[in-house]
């Protein structure tokens, strides 16, 4: 009845096969390089300090700062938008957190306020992007500079010591900077919780399908009745909320607010997502890949420092690595599609 069914079926069978291997390879390339990095750093750092328990614990405390934000940024990128303002929203919410504690609020409530403000700044980004139709790259570049400027003026760039307000050993302190079973950093637990929750939303929930559809073909998604503007705004809000939490975690760990918190996070978060296989054009990506990317960038940082690469040279390596990852991904894609 339908013309040339047999050939079609044969063709499609081959497509299924190659696509399966493509899927496998797309996350596999990142995984392979990730494992390679861990092995190299373990072997070539002095006294194998990289895999020493102290270093692993330190990494587990540090990497979620960026990692938690990257989880949200990845989802936002899949919906087809960027958020560069994370690098300012994070210290901004940290400042709110510190100020509210200074004002006599309990740390828990101060944190909730900070997270709420983060969500509102995300909402603002989202509204500007969908209402003006400007590229989010430009909009959030503007809000990145704007909030950083506001913060510098407001805080006069003075650090705020928050140690007197967060009681050592209190439940709040434990939940923000403690360890589980004596060595497992709580920050990593937060990262795992959010990657699981957001992963379920992205891959198994209706809203996740809307995110993919919005990023992959916005017109199609709209024609099918998906409110793509709302989808994007919600993704921006998620990023803002995560910035608030990450800012809180970082501030408690450091024991103070610093106006320089978060500098460089805007591009690192995107780099982490790209390394994890998220497409810059939206519509492609997976939570597993984002998690890998969010681990890879800090490990690259940490490993290179331990290998005594001069600190200022490290960004050069991260830049190189990002390009290599993207090349690798698109090579694998072209080879197999």
């Amino acid at each position, binding site marked *: 009845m*339908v013309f040339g069914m047999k050939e*079609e079926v044969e063709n499609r069978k081959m497509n299924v096969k190659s696509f399966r291997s493509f899927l496998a390879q797309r996350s596999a390339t990142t995984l392979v390089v990730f494992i390679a990095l861990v092995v190299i750093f373990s072997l070539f750092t002095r006294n194998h300090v990289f895999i020493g328990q102290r270093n692993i614990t330190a990494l587990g405390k540090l990497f979620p700062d960026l990692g938690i934000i990257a989880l949200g940024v990845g989802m936002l990128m899949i919906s087809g938008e960027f958020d560069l303002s994370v690098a300012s929203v994070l210290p901004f919410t940290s400042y709110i957190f510190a100020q509210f504690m200074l004002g006599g609020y309990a740390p828990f409530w101060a944190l909730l306020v900070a997270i709420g403000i983060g969500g509102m700044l995300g909402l603002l980004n989202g509204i500007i992007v969908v209402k003006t139709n400007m590229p989010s790259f430009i909009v959030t570049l503007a809000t990145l500079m704007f909030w950083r400027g506001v913060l510098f003026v407001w805080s006069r760039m003075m650090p705020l010591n928050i140690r007197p307000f967060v009681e050592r050993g209190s439940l709040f302190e434990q939940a923000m900077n403690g360890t589980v079973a004596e060595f497992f950093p709580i920050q990593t637990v937060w990262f795992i919780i959010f990657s699981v929750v957001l992963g*379920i939303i992205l891959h198994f929930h209706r809203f996740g399908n809307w995110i993919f559809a919005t990023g992959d073909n916005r017109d199609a998604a709209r*024609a099918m009745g998906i409110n793509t503007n709302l989808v994007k705004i919600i993704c921006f809000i998620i990023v803002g909320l995560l910035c608030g939490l990450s800012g809180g975690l970082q501030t408690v760990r450091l024991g103070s607010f610093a106006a320089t918190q978060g500098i460089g996070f805007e591009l690192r978060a995107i780099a982490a997502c790209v390394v994890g296989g998220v497409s810059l054009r939206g519509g492609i990506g997976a939570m597993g890949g984002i998690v890998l990317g969010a681990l890879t960038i800090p490990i690259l940082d940490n490993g290179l420092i331990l290998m005594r690469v001069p600190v200022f040279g490290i960004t050069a390596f991260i830049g190189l690595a990002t390009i290599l990852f993207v090349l690798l991904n698109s090579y694998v894609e072209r080879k197999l599609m």
Partner: protein
Amino acid sequence: MSNENNNSDLLVKMTNIHKWFGRVYAVRGVDFQVRQGETVGLLGDNGAGKSTLIKILCGYHQAEKGDIIFEGKKVRINSPREAQKLGIETVYQDQALAPNLSIARNVFMGREPVKGMGMLDKKLMDEESMKALSNLGLRLDSPDLPVITLSGGGRQGVAIARALHFKAKLVILDEPTVALSVKEVGEVLEFIKQLRKEGISVVFISHNIYHAFSIAERFVVMARGKVMREVTKEEVTLDKLNELVIESAIVDID
């Protein structure tokens, strides 16, 4: 020409529809109707107002003036979702598909079946999408294939299967055969015949009269935002229809 005594089996009737885009007067007082189970070819050159008229019907645009009567009731269609609720499904020329998403996720895009708390019912999505596709005579290996791996005809099949699954009463195909190979065009025309067998009304928009002629029962020719001619298949030959379309495009109505 419309048969007044046949009003009872009218599915949709649009009267005196007007639409401006800024200073562009895209649709200028158009009457358009489709009967139950009928396949209508909507013809005309680029910019004739075909797509605009149809986007009003499927809720993508709203008319400045004019009435739409659907199944005997006057309706206002404010969004694509409202059109879908009435039973109007559209297969757009830019293909309302997300290329990197799977077949199942495309079929149910925006109307995903859920098990509670909004979690996708993946099993149902897989089964139902494969069922709708096989009803069209399209057998694909897996509902997990991204639609980008399908042929052009296969992709149109996925979009049409969507209409079939959601029990559309009217399927609008906006240039479904543009940019397809001869073989793929054949596939798509087969899908449309399948829709007709299910008793679904079809509006087939095309500027390729050969494709339209082979499946439609009635033809509406538009030019410069107006309906120029309406003929049934019995009244014309392919050549005559071709002439009508060219004539309509050339004739100066002002």
